[in-house]
């Protein structure tokens, strides 16, 4: 126990040990040590260190601790998605802006009725649908769907879902929906715009959760807690002085 007490006593800051170290050691030699004394010295050493830190140091330490904790939490998150995609050749329409035209096309093809149908067909987001309404599941499906125009003039569609097979099936279904919508919609299918699948849906790429926003959020929360802690410490010190 003597070794543990000596180790705990080293946690006190050097300036404190320079002033009180000898007499503190003399006290420790005189008392009959208990296990609770180890904890008491540990607590005393840590609080003595924190008392001697300035506000900037406290905020920095809390920010680092917050960022670290957030990264640890992000590793425990199960939100790893399989993203499956398909690329189309999309002929530029004669009139209008290409981006506007494709955006309208995506909205028309992947409308809410279609998304609801696809959610029911593939039984997507069962927990979400049990807890909340279909509207919540549709919003999640909208977020999981990405439609982007490449510089080559190609149009890429992808869908993210925790199950790789379902992600691929949904992507294939969406591709078919695009082709059908192209023929159904007279405004989009009068020869000015043409959609054709040039590649089969890819087997899928596993997406890792983006840990940067997590770490940043944790660090910001840590700074806020650190500033609050420094403020409370200063207030307490002023009140007791």
């Amino acid at each position, binding site marked *: 126990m003597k070794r543990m007490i000596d180790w705990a006593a080293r946690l006190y800051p050097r300036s404190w040990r320079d002033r*009180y170290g*000898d007499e503190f050691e003399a006290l420790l030699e005189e008392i009959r040590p208990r296990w609770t004394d180890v*904890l*008491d*010295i540990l607590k*005393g050493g840590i609080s003595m260190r924190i008392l001697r830190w300035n506000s900037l140091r406290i905020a920095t330490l809390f920010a680092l601790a917050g960022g670290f904790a957030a990264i640890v939490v992000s590793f425990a998150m199960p939100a790893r998605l399989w993203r499956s995609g398909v690329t189309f050749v999309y002929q530029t329409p004669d009139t209008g802006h290409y981006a506007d035209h494709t955006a309208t096309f995506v909205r028309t093809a992947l409308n809410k009725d279609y998304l609801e149908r696809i959610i029911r067909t593939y039984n997507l987001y069962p927990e979400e649908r049990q807890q909340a309404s279909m509207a919540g599941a549709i919003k999640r499906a909208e977020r999981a769907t990405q439609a982007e125009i490449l510089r080559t003039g190609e149009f890429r569609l992808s869908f993210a879902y925790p199950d790789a097979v379902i992600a691929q099936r949904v992507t294939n279904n969406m591709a078919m929906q695009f082709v059908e919508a192209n023929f159904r919609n007279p405004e989009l299918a009068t020869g000015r715009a043409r959609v054709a699948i040039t590649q089969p849906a890819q087997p899928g790429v596993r997406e890792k959760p983006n840990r940067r926003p997590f770490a940043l959020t944790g660090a910001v929360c840590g700074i806020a807690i650190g500033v609050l802690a420094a403020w409370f410490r200063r207030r307490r010190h002023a009140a007791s002085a």
Partner: protein
Amino acid sequence: MSDPTLLVLASLAGGDKHGYAIMEDIQTLAGVRLGPGTLYGAITRLEERGWIRALQSADRRQPYRLTADGRRYLQTELRNLSQVAKIGLRRLEDA
């Protein structure tokens, strides 16, 4: 009364003492055993506030003395505590 700073001040009100003697005295007068970390945390705060001061000593054991400010503070706090104790006891008797 469990505030370590008040207990240390109350102990030193009875005369100059070093750390171990303060610890023993507090155990006798209040039935509380202050841990070494708690005791020296209180001693550090009290010395920083000028309520106690270290005396010259050839020994490693450092004796402390209550200052005039410390005495005033202790008197005020003990009067307040005594007032609370009196009112509390009276209310218990009336109840």
